[in-house]
C-alpha cells in the first residue's frame, strides 16, 4: 500500500470555531450510539418480564444513569439540530462561509434551549420527577 495522505488532515488547519460544530456532531453521535445500546438493553429487560425489568430499573435509576440521561438528552438535541443543518446543506443552500458561521451559532443556541426544555420535562415534569 503506497503511503498516501489520509484525511482528516487535523494538523494542517488553523482552528476555526465552526470546526467545533463538526466535532460535536461526531461526539454526540457516538454518545447516541451508547444510547441505542441502552435502549436495546431496556427493551430486552421489558420483554423478559416484570422481574427482569425491575432489576434493570434499579440499575437505570442510579445517579450515574440519571447523569447519562442528561448527557443523552444534550447529545440528542445537538445531533438533531446539527443534523438538520447538514440536511439543509445537502440541498446546496447556506454553504457560504458567513452563512455557515451564522448557522453554527444558531445550532448552538437552539440545541442549548432544546436541551433545557427536554431536560426540564424529563427531570422535573415527567414520571421520573422527584
Amino acid at each position, binding site marked *: 500500500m503506497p503511503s498516501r495522505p489520509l484525511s482528516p488532515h487535523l494538523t494542517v488547519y488553523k482552528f476555526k470555531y465552526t470546526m467545533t460544530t463538526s466535532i460535536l456532531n461526531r461526539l454526540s453521535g457516538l454518545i447516541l*450510539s451508547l444510547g441505542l445500546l441502552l435502549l*436495546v438493553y431496556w427493551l430486552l429487560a*421489558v420483554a423478559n418480564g416484570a422481574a427482569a425489568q425491575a432489576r434493570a430499573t434499579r440499575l437505570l435509576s442510579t445517579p450515574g444513569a440519571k447523569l447519562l440521561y442528561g448527557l443523552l438528552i444534550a447529545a*440528542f438535541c445537538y445531533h438533531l439540530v446539527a*443534523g438538520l443543518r447538514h*440536511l439543509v446543506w445537502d440541498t446546496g443552500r447556506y454553504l457560504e462561509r458567513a452563512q455557515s458561521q451564522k448557522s453554527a451559532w444558531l445550532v448552538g443556541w437552539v440545541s442549548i434551549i432544546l436541551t433545557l426544555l427536554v431536560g426540564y420535562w424529563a427531570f422535573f415534569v415527567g*414520571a421520573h420527577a422527584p
Partner: protein
Amino acid sequence: MSLRSPLGRVLGLGAAKEGVHHWWHQRLTSIALVPLSIWFLVSLLSLPAYDHATVIAWMGESSTALLLILLVLAAAWHSQLGVRVVIEDYVHAEGSKTLLLVVVLLAHVLLAAAGVLAVLRVTLGSPA
C-alpha cells in the same frame, strides 16, 4: 515503469462508487430518524410511569411496536454508518481498522435484531 493499468492501480483504493451509497443511506436514515426519534422521546416522556404493566401496555400497541421497530432499525443503521466513518478517519493501521469495522457492523446487526425481537415478543404477547 509499471505494467499495471491505471484502473488496476486505483481499484480497491478509493470510494469505487460506494461512497455515494454510504452518503445516501446516512441521509435516508437521518430523515427517517427526525420524526421517529422525536416521537420516541415525546411518547416515552409522556408515560405516566415506567413500571412493567404501563410499559407493556404501551409497547403492546401495534402503532408503538411498529414505530419502535423502525426506530431501532434506522438508529442501528445510522449509528453503524457514523461509527464506521469515525473508525475510517482515526484508525489508520489496516489490520485493526478492518477488524474494528467488522466488529462494529456485527454488533449493530446484533443490537438491531435483539431490539426488534424484544419489541415483537412484547407486542405479540409471548413472554419468556
